[in-house]
């Protein structure tokens, strides 16, 4: 099964645009439930872009990795996160370290900076899209922004996933992804990391009665 490279290139461009847009929406929302589904949607776009690139260039393992990523990060991970959200009383980022309206300005600035930064880097020969690398850099930075400005445990996990999406997108905007054995390992690690985060979020609920990381302030010096 192959795909016309021109169509693939357009698919990847569209996915890159969607990924950046979803990243901005994640920064904009205070609802944790919405951010979980947004990051799942973003992961699906990343996976689609991988599948399109893989099919267009006959790189089978990239397409396989993309399909697996859609299943794992688009379906399994949000279900795991959703289940902890349902037990928790915390549904919204009430007092983030930086209000979304300011964070939004930063998120847009990040998109510009990423576009400028990616300008100088020549993508690997034959890689379908020139839009993917700026989007990748933007999502790595957006993920860091979310992790640094939010306080709730689940929001931090969402930030980590945005960061991971950025790295995954970097992987096939520079090259055709990584060897399959590495990609499988990475996906597996991400899944286990989310499960462990889920375990700790539950323990936080038991011990502190909340999943707000505000209560995590006793270790100093």
């Amino acid at each position, binding site marked *: 099964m192959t795909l016309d490279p021109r169509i693939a290139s357009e698919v990847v461009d569209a996915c890159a645009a969607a990924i950046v847009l979803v990243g901005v929406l994640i920064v904009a929302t205070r609802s944790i439930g919405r951010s979980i589904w947004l990051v799942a949607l973003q992961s699906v776009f990343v996976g689609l872009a991988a599948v399109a690139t893989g099919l267009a260039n006959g790189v089978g393992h990239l397409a396989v990795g993309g399909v697996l990523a859609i299943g794992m990060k688009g379906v399994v991970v949000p279900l795991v996160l959703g289940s902890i959200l349902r037990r928790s009383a915390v549904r919204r980022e009430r007092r983030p370290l930086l209000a979304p309206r300011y964070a939004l300005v930063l998120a847009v600035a990040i998109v510009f900076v990423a576009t400028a930064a990616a300008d100088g880097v020549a993508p690997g020969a034959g890689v379908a899209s020139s839009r993917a690398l700026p989007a990748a850099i933007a999502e790595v930075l957006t993920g860091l922004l979310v992790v640094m400005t939010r306080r709730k445990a689940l929001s931090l996990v969402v930030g*980590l996933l945005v960061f991971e999406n950025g790295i995954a997108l970097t992987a096939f905007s520079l090259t055709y992804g990584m060897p399959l054995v590495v990609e499988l390992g990475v996906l597996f690690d991400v899944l286990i990391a989310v499960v462990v985060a889920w375990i700790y979020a539950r323990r936080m609920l*038991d011990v502190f009665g909340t999943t707000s990381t505000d209560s*995590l302030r*006793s270790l100093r010096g």
Partner: protein
Amino acid sequence: MTELLVVLVVGTPVAAGIAAWFTDARLCPRLALAGLGPAVVAGIALAVLVFVSGPQRAFEGLVAVDAFGAYALLLVLVVATIAAAGSPAYLAHEAAAGALRQRDSGHYYALLAWFVAGLAAVPLVDNLGLVWVGIEATTIVSALLVGFRRTAQAIEAAWKYLILGSIGVGFALLGTLLVYASSVGVLGETSDALAWTRLIEVAPRLDPSFVRLAFVFALAGYGTKAGLAPFHTWLPDAHSQAPSPISALLSGAALAVSLYALARFHLVTAGTLGAGFSATLLVVFGLLSLAVALPFLVAQGDLKRLLAYSSIEHVGLATLALGFGGHLALLGFTLHLASHGLAKSTVFLAAGRLVAERGSHRIGRLTGSLARSPANGRALLVAALVLAGLPPSGIFAAELAILFGGVETGWTLAAGLAALLLALAVAGLLFHVVRVTAGPAGSVGEPGVAGLGRGPAPAAIAHALLLAVPLAVVVVAGLWTPSPVKAALEQVVGILGGGGG
């Protein structure tokens, strides 16, 4: 042969872990031993094979062990043995304090076995991508161990470790990707393009701009895992809140494995760009770690945090040695890695017992340890003298070699600064440890837990031996190195780029 040994080293702990997860408290220590025992024996056999008959390859090139890998593997397995041997007493204490749930000890041994399997796998694989997978896997498993006690503080430490560790390791993944991007044109789209044995061969032909960026990301990523300042903030929390045998593994083995990964990146980068770029970064971050750890060593009120900051100091020193390069400094690096691993894992076990007897981490509450609990008190004191770098010990010899090596390779100013920072750190570390050890015994803390450090006679003797043997090895290493060991160290130094000395 090599295949079988590799399967034993990594496979048996994984399998034993799975078995321990599902069994009850009485069986699981034996299961864990049943998994770790063969792994340790096979690991030693594999290392000897490598040192005697050269690098080994297996599984179609996926596994490649050279002298440096074998050395790291040995260190991991020795520290794992110390940690596993200290675990039954730790769990017995937790059980006596009523802090264990029914399945907790099974889970503890399972996670311990998986942690060791992950640490042991990293120096075996010939693929920077799989090195990353292994290190991330150890982060996740050990995060569960850090929060094992389920107290508010342990959960806080584990959470910070998980989030900061994942972000840090994410940067390392970016670094790995960039290496792949730099080499895919040279080596083609196979897993060869991430094999460090191949990367070092073709290093001069890699794309330099990608490699430069890759090293920066790898330094941030594996530097986070190794506890290099300014990425170290999770370390004192995790190492102090984890169960003490786990602290021993984290400080003694996990840091060394992260340094191993960093060293591989350094070797590839130096091959592409010349030694200057990555060496300078290593020296800068090494010195920064020494400087950042110092105030926390001097003004510290918590015994386990004191030891954790000492780990940051020593990781800084090791990084500095890698940056200095040259035969002498690299010999120091090699000797330091093992000496620190042994001394730090032992001291965490001793400190863990003292803390358990007293029910507090606070230095002010722990005074009089020598009188109250002679074996642990003595071990703590000796280990602190060793860790402070006083002669005679492997760490003293290593520090001298590193500093003189730095002068030799032209890093005079950096070596001088490091010497000053190390000397100041001695004062901080020893001041607090002397406070803990000296003084009258005082009353023993919780009644039900009292005397656990002494216990029945055979267990007490075993515990004293567990503390004394590794420390004795470190002390003797400063005076006398048997010639096979010397030859092995020289092989490691040769791989790290200090050959011919």
